[in-house]
């Protein structure tokens, strides 16, 4: 009887120590993931916003206006590459890269809406409905940001909301204003929130 009781105690204690150690490891992993998740450098927004402003200016030039879709697609490729590089950078010193669980979650949240945007761009282009493209891009990019904000700072969700609002607006605006709204979104909103996020990293305490 006593032997059995000791055996039970041994089992109970082993489970407690092991589960405690496992919980500690889990806490360390969660802390590391959370630290990486808040790494939204303002510079990423500044670079993406600058690319957006440049694309908006180029596509408004009379000589290049007919090529606005190529200009904006090129700008998107450059902005995505620059943004991804700058988002990955803060994690690098510790060796935690974009292969981490948090990065996978971020990609899973972001990619579906961006993929939908790419498919709809092709559909609009094939059907000659080019005026719907700016609104579609803004709307779906906003949705992607709102989804991805679960792994990032809340400011990203707010930025996503602004993109969604601009996208809805763009879908109902005349064609002459579409590219301006596109510039306001991918240029202006990126720059505005980059500054806000940059300010947010400053301390309230010395």
């Amino acid at each position: 009887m006593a032997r059995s009781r000791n055996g039970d105690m041994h089992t109970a204690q082993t489970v407690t120590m092991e589960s405690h150690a496992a919980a500690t490891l889990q806490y360390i992993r969660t802390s590391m993931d959370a630290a990486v998740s808040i790494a939204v450098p303002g510079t990423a927004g500044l670079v993406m916003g600058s690319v957006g402003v440049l694309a908006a200016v180029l596509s408004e030039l009379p000589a290049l206006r007919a090529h606005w879709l190529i200009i904006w697609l090129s700008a998107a490729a450059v902005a995505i590459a620059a943004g991804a590089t700058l988002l990955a950078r803060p994690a690098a010193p510790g060796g935690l890269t974009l292969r981490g669980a948090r990065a996978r979650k971020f990609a899973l949240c972001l990619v579906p809406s961006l993929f939908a945007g790419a498919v709809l761009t092709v559909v609009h282009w094939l059907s000659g409905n080019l005026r719907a493209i700016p609104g579609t891009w803004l709307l779906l990019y906003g949705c992607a940001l709102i989804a991805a904000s679960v792994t990032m700072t809340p400011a990203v969700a707010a930025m996503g909301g602004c993109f969604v609002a601009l996208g809805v607006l763009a879908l109902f605006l005349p064609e002459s204003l579409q590219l301006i709204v596109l510039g306001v979104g991918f240029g202006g909103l990126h720059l505005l929130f980059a500054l806000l996020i940059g300010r947010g990293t400053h301390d309230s305490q010395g």
Partner: protein
Amino acid sequence: MTVKAKARATAAPAAHKRPNLTPLRGESEDSRFDRLVYERVRLGILSALAVREELSFSELKALFDVSDGNLSAHARKLEEAKYLSCTKSFAERRPKTVYRLTALGRGALNRYLDHVEAVIKATRRG
């Protein structure tokens, strides 16, 4: 919490067969500072700084949802143990405090991780 687990182990009957936990190298000489790492918020700070080159006071506060005073106290203890380095500056007239993990702090976190892993391995063997 690990301290509590150890206390329970000490209080167990002598007949109780415990897993043979070999003390880790350097554990005794560092035991004075190991207590620093055991505390949950401090362990979180060290873990977070292990994957980020630096974190500001406000980022750490948001991460662990603690008060200014509480975070200051924990950070100061780690700083006094030379586990963290702290840089204070002004950005746009606002004070900015940035923490970095030192080599000593990274070593302490690694030792603690080794210890936790050893506990898991030993209990699974036992």
